[in-house]
């Protein structure tokens, strides 16, 4: 029985060893687990009520990520600059700064799928009222990443950000923003 087990083990090792890709993948995996930083840009779109006041524009941002010892979980800090203009006088500038937890689907694919959720604060400046200030924000998102070598990753992302104003007297609604973009980031 022991002999059969030994043979099986040797056969399994031989089979695994013949698939060098498996080790390559493991190697990439390790790279992906390193701390990462990068940037993104793409269309930022107001949703809900906000979409009646301001329009879609291009926005962009930067982020930094640390991996937990469990490689499928990351912690990220994200910030971006988003300016929503309109055909008229309305104008909204939005700088979200938030932390988020990223969860990578623990299934081995050449591309990586990550879900993320987080919270933080967002600086807003509105025209024509010429007012600005900070509001709490909550976010959820999804990313697809393509490793391009040991250092570079290329990804697509879609984030939903909710700007919460319910705690302020007189507030009628919060804000909904959807960010989509292409991102480039590096394993360091």
């Amino acid at each position, binding site marked *: 029985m022991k002999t059969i087990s030994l043979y099986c083990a040797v056969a399994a090792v031989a089979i695994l060893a013949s698939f060098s890709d498996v080790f390559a993948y493991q190697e990439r995996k390790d790279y992906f687990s390193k701390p990462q930083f990068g940037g993104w840009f793409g269309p930022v779109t107001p949703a809900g009520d906000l979409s009646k006041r301001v329009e879609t524009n291009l926005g962009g941002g930067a982020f930094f990520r640390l991996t937990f010892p469990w490689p499928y979980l990351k912690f990220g800090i994200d910030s971006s600059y988003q300016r929503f203009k309109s055909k008229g006088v309305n104008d909204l500038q939005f700088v979200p700064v938030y932390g988020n937890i990223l969860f990578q689907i623990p299934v081995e694919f050449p591309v990586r799928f990550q879900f993320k959720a987080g*919270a933080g604060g967002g600086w807003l400046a*509105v025209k024509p009222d010429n007012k600005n200030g900070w509001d709490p924000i909550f976010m959820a998102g999804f990313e697809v990443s393509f490793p391009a070598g040991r250092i570079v990753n290329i990804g697509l992302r879609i984030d939903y950000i909710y700007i919460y104003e319910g705690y302020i007297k007189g507030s009628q609604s919060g804000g909904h923003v959807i960010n989509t973009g292409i991102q480039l980031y590096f394993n360091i």
Partner: protein
Amino acid sequence: MRRGLDKRFCMKLLKQSTVVILVLLFACTVNCNKDPLLTDLKTKKLIVVLKGTYESNSPMEWSMPTACAHVDPVTNKCDTYTPEYLAQMQDDSVYECNSTEDTLPNVFMIDLSEIRLWDTRGKSYKFANYRQTFASALSDSDPMFNGTGYPLSNDDVPSKAYTCIALYIRKMLLDGAKSYVARDDGWYPSVVWDVYKEGEYPTFNFNALQIHSYYDDLLISSASINRVYPLIIPINDLLTGGAGMFFNSKFSYTVLEIRMVVKNFIKKYEQKSTTSNAYTVKHFHGLSDWLNDVEKGDSVIGGNVLTVARTYVPELVGRISGTATAGRHVIAIPAGSSILSYTLNVDPYVDHAVTTTPARDESMGTLRGLNPCNLPKKPSYYTGTSINRALEYFLKYENYKYEWNKLVPQGTFVYPDSTELTTYCDSYDTFKEEWNKYAKETGIRSMVLPQLAVYVPSSGSFTIENVMPGSYDVYVANRAPEYGKLYYNHYDTGSGTYVSEFTLLGTVTVGPGSTATVP
């Protein structure tokens, strides 16, 4: 052991991450807004209201004269107009087509592409970049004509001073327009259709004709002048000393009221087709040519959209009440300002020839007709193939040359009161001088409508609503309003000054929430 360490490390990092997120949230909440910014972006504190009346509240009733005096029992068509209709509703420029089948208009339509406010530096704010359309029945209950007004869609503007508002009017339409074709046995009418709000309606867009014709085309600047689009309305609020309006978002609401004189200010005009072989004449309705006279042969009716704008803050307003002769207009103007700015000098061309009373005399002719440089207009080229119409064009052209030569370079111009003109319109300088005199001395370009006006009802007591705090001179008109006309000044030979058709009732000071009574 290693596994346990990882787990602890993992938990530690997770806790730290959570703390970072919570700190970010906390930091923003501590420094957070006291103002709901997104709600501010959504809600508007500047309310823009559009009215179609001379009065700011309590407008007079519609008094359009009845069109038909007698209906032919055989054809069941109108065969005679009432004298009031001919005198008040039908402009003197209607002369080609004598058909009696025109009817009164029933609806006024306006199509606004956008509205802008201009600040003191001339920067424009696209605060109402929304296309808006309104169709109003010509009735006393319609919000456009009952003193309430239609609220427009707009956003707020930054808190600052603004000098004027610009209305980008795509179209203004009135119904009742007819196109007449001349046949051997008379005029054959057909209804004129125009597009409003992407649909076809039996209406006529008179906004396209709101341009001047009688002097602009001889000015060098005429090519760059656009007097229609946008329609610029100065806002002469008392708060800014007449220099504009001041919007402050600290107040819950500020109302910007725009008034356009449409009620009891509609006339019928005529337009001829010069391109087709069929001899067609169009009768349409537009705003009264009280300010800028429309003469025979004119193809445009410009300079007659009379507007005024003002702002008030509902939290601050008071009112002015008092008694006056019923059926008169009462207006309130900033204390100390000249009433002559709100009325038109009627007689700059017959200076000193007018007696004190009765001041105005229709037989003097129109202001435009009295201008010696009111040169005849060249008839439009006929491009059809009808020999009769071509001959008619040549006849008109000969007549045009005859009329022109009477004034340029030399001739004799006799005023209706038999005084002879001593200077002729024989040079460009004279032309410019005379039209400048026309503009300056008649006040045709400087005349403004009063921001506050009411019509005194039969009870004799009036109330001017929504009056911003300040001192006002309250005037009452000496006469009842005439259809299609506003008010004049007359030269008083005794005092050597102009006298208005308004008499001072008294001066009042209005405070927030108070009612000032005119003594």
